């Protein structure tokens, strides 16, 4: 990490009294936005404010999975662009992001799941994204460690196979983007908390920090799981979001045995083998909102049981570490990107739940365009907050995800 002592390229910058744009949160989305503002829009009088250190939030806690086989026609093109950007960013940032496109296997454990996968695969193909249906034997050929027994809790019927996805080293993305943006003149202020947003006549005027107010005509609030709370605290904007702690863990390093990202809805688990050899696994969200980022013994047990049923060779392998972060969930499992409503000059990018790593490259690029021009790019229009107020939710999930009395 670039801690307080580690110096960014050009050193720790002075906090100026005015910037052309202030981005609240030093996570992936804002670092990508800052990079593209400088690179594609010639805007480098830009400040990124980070309360802790860059990568403190979901940026440094995610399990690094990238893919573009989502469910709806509105979502897939954004994720496809993000996926296509990893090799480009690796080159442009001159930083090895360790993109490992090993492919994703989404295990199917029932006829209903196979049927649902067929729809997803057809949508992906229609939008130019590679996705196939595999039967059980073809699935096991890809990952011989998988258990094809009919006697397990949820026997494997097959898989949705998405070859272009995989994993990207998340810390490298943080470092690469921060280095690139700082070299282009962006000021990354760590240990600098945004305390409030100043407005006048419906327009933003600045951001309050412990060191005083920074004047700016544009503020982007994109602080991962903290965004919704900040928007309410600072501007009294209520978001259709629930913030939950989500956990992950890694085993001791093993010789290569798993060269795909494997996920299973029925077992409520996903796993991949990192380049260091650890099996990284997760999926559990707490059943009620909280900001604790605490882990639970019960879930570690669940992971061990599920993984060993799916891949019996993992029996006896030890977990080395577990950790947790925040997931800001929307009811339709799609993010919210908006701006200039209700406050001119205030932009928001949030609701990325547990899937906001894979999208940060393309989202940063579009948010940069949005901030630079003041006009919402067409690609982002479906993600406006108004879809909830108009009760036109996106169909990214078949059933509404809602932490309210309805379910």
């Amino acid at each position: 990490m670039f801690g307080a002592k580690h110096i960014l390229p050009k050193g720790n910058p002075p906090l100026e009294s005015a910037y052309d744009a202030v981005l609240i949160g030093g996570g992936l989305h804002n670092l990508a936005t800052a990079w593209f503002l400088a690179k594609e829009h010639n805007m480098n009088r830009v400040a990124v404010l980070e309360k802790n250190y860059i990568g403190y939030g979901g940026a440094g806690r995610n399990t690094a999975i990238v893919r573009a086989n989502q469910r709806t026609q509105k979502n897939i093109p954004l994720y496809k662009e993000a996926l296509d950007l990893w090799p480009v960013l690796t080159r442009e940032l001159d930083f090895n992001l360790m993109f490992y496109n090993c492919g994703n296997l989404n295990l199917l454990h029932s006829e209903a799941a196979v049927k649902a996968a067929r729809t997803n695969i057809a949508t992906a193909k229609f939008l130019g994204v590679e996705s196939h249906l595999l039967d059980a034997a073809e699935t096991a050929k890809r990952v011989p460690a998988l258990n094809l027994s009919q006697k397990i809790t949820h026997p494997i019927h097959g898989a949705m196979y998405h070859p272009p996805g995989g994993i990207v080293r998340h810390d490298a993305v943080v470092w690469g983007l921060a280095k690139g943006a700082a070299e282009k003149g962006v000021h990354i202020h760590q240990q600098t908390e945004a305390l409030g947003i100043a407005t006048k006549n419906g327009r933003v005027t600045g951001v309050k920090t412990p060191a005083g107010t920074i004047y700016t005509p544009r503020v982007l609030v994109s602080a991962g799981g903290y965004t919704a709370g900040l928007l309410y605290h600072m501007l009294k904007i209520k978001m259709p979001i629930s913030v939950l702690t989500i956990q992950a863990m890694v085993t001791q390093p093993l010789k290569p045995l798993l060269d795909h990202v494997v996920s299973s809805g029925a077992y409520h688990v996903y796993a991949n083998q990192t380049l260091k050899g650890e099996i990284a696994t997760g999926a559990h969200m707490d059943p009620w909102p909280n900001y604790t980022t605490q882990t639970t013994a019960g879930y570690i047990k669940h992971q061990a049981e599920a993984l060993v049923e799916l891949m019996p060779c993992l029996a006896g392998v030890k977990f080395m570490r577990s950790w947790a972060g925040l997931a800001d969930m929307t009811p339709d499992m799609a993010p919210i990107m908006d701006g200039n409503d209700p406050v001119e000059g205030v932009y928001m990018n949030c609701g990325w739940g547990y899937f906001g790593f894979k999208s940060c490259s393309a989202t940063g690029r579009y948010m940069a365009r949005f901030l630079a021009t003041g006009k919402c790019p067409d690609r982002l229009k479906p993600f406006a907050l108004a879809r909830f107020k108009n009760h036109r939710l996106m169909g990214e999930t078949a059933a509404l995800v809602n932490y309210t009395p309805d379910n």
Partner: protein
Amino acid sequence: MSLLIHCPICGRRNGYEFRYGGEDKGAYPAGRSLTPEAWYEYVHANTCSAGVVAEWWCHRHGCGLWFTIFRDTRTNRQVLEHGGRS
């Protein structure tokens, strides 16, 4: 994740016996004057406060009662309305 909740009927019980029901939004906004905006506020809009929040809970695996508690979302503890220990 540990949580103890005080049910008005059953007393202090393990949080996993309860169903979280969302932020306390007040009375059901029924009636002819209900706008799409007000319905949005009622079903979707949250404060997401990192701090003390008034919430609906149901003692699902107990007496079935719906009631309101105050909980600090930073510590995951039920508290009194002003934030003190309950």
